């Protein structure tokens, strides 16, 4: 029986993770930052960018897969 077989443990881990997210988002307003681009002034820019980047990455990869996916033995004779 592994640790993650218990759904309670998974819930616990998720709770810790979501707390971290909230803290990180809020701490953005306190920490002093040196800005290089105006885009960075948006509160939580990095958080939004990270989320949007990864979601779009996966959806674009799924589209890409439609074009380039072949059978596993495609190159074998």
């Amino acid at each position, binding site marked *: 029986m592994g640790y993650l077989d218990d759904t309670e443990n998974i819930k616990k881990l998720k709770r810790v*993770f979501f707390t971290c*997210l909230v803290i*990180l988002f809020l701490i953005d307003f306190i*920490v002093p930052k040196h800005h290089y681009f105006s885009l960075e002034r948006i509160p939580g820019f*990095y*958080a939004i960018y*990270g989320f949007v*980047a990864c979601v779009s*990455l996966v959806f674009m990869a*799924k589209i890409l897969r439609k074009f380039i996916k072949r059978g596993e033995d495609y190159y074998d004779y």
Partner: protein
Amino acid sequence: MITSVPPAAIFIIGAFLVPFLKGKLKTAYLLLLPVIAILNLLNLSEGTSWVFGFLDYNLIFCRVDKLSMVFGYIFVIMGFLGTLYGIHVKEGGHHLAVFLYVGSSLGVVFSGDLFSLFIFWEIMAFASTFLIWYKKDKRALGAGLRYLLVHTFGGTCLLAGIMMYLHTTGSLEFSFIGINGTASLLIFIGFIINAAIPPLHAWLTDAYPESTVTGTVLLSIFTTKTAVYVLARAFPGTEILILLGAIMTVFPIFYAVIENDTRRVLAYSLINQVGFMVVGIGIGTELSLNGAVSHAFCNILFEGLLFMCTGAVLYVTGTSKCTELGGLYRTMPITLMLCLVGAASISAFPLFTGFVSKSMVIQAAADGHMFIIWLALLFASAGVFHHAGIKIPYFIFFAEDSGKRPDEPPLNMLLSMGIVAFLCILIGIFPGVLYQILPYPVDFVPYTPGHVVSQLQLLFFAGLAFLFLITYGFYPKEERSTNLDIDWFYRKAGRGFMWFCNHPAAKFNMWIDQAFLGGTRGFIWFCRNPIPTLGLWMDTAFVMFYNGFIWFSENPVSILVSGFYGGLHLAFAMVSKGLLRIYIEIGKARDGAEKKRAFYRELIESGPPGGDVENISSDLFIAFIIFAVFLVYMAIKYFL
């Protein structure tokens, strides 16, 4: 004080003793040699030594400065750890190839002239090919051959470039070159093939995942990083590298997301990581070059660690595919922890190596106000976390339980991985250790609150994206597949080209051959017998006309009278004609080949200007005279 020898020499000369040793002595020797190399390296002092005259030039085998030393340090360390990781390998030839590969990489790093650099460059390509071939299956054989062909092409470009460079500048010295003409461009192409810069990257993702367990670890370390070294020395500030590097960071992550083989996922992430270094070299400021070099240093550690982990999983389970793995955390907790250190490092979590080196490159891009490049690098940073930081550990150790319950890998693997993981954390916490050996003085502070918070935000919310996608079933399922890449052009299209050569082109060639042969034969025959030929034609035409006339006049009547007799006659004629035809065809087929050969032999033996050619021309001459006489005769007849 003992004088130091070139670091390459220890590995390359030492390699040839390996096949003669056996058992514990071999193990001891394999581990001792890299230790000697490390001690020797620490003893090196800056400057050039081991200079040999060759023709009119100097071959410099030991040019020591800060740039070469950074790579020297990490190469000998990984030479030791890589050997330790693969110490269980039985084949002496495998160890020989490893030492030659490590030695020649060190040779490239410490050579001060282009000629010895080229020699080491080629040894590197050949030695590393054997690390692929030692996997000993059909795929490895093919992948190794393609790998070798691509690198020999790169080597040839490099050699041609070096020769032209020598011709134009008169110098073989290996220092800043910069793109300014064909010679430097050829050298540049030779270099960027090894750096796996697109569209010349497919050899990496094709060959590395097909290599041996140990081989992949070592391959991921040396070839691309020596390329980064030579680019940093010869082409810093080359602007095209910024664009190429940014493309390198972005496009592989799409492939990595949909790739099933974990080692191929890492191969794509390796291209992505080298992209950061290439961008750093392209920007060319002190900060960015430091970033590129330090990122190469750190990447060797964490990418090596991740390849070691996937290699260890392959070693104990026999597979490295996501579809066949999952749930291994139950029985392989140590490997999991080490893998997580590698994953955190490659994702550039604060307190791990990637953070202290990658942020230098991103900072340099921001300093240069390169907005698009900066966005691309951030996108790639989030993407790296996604595919290398989460996907690799998730699909191997968690995800759906595969039912596999393998033991931890052998102690030597764990020990080697442990030391690399320790170095990853050490440099992450005390970046000063790394910063003091960089080529330029460092005034970059990675651990500012702003940096740490923005990086953590980027990563945690990328993680949230993964959680969101996998919970709601948007994440692409792991599927057994081959994803097409640039190598399609020489793996499939190449086959098409061969088909074209063997079928339509060869057939066309045969037609031309036959037409020419028949034409020539007929022409020669005509030239020798012009009058009979013309006569024959006329006879033929006359006979045909006459026959037609007779048939026309006779047939309508006689067909009624002698229908039966005529039909019998016709059938007999047709059968006998058919038999004759078959007989002729058989004879032709039998004689055709022999005749053709004899004809060619005759042509070859006679050769120009004697023999047949002379005969032909004299015959032609006679034919021409006869024609002229005929014309004169006609003219006279007309006028009189």
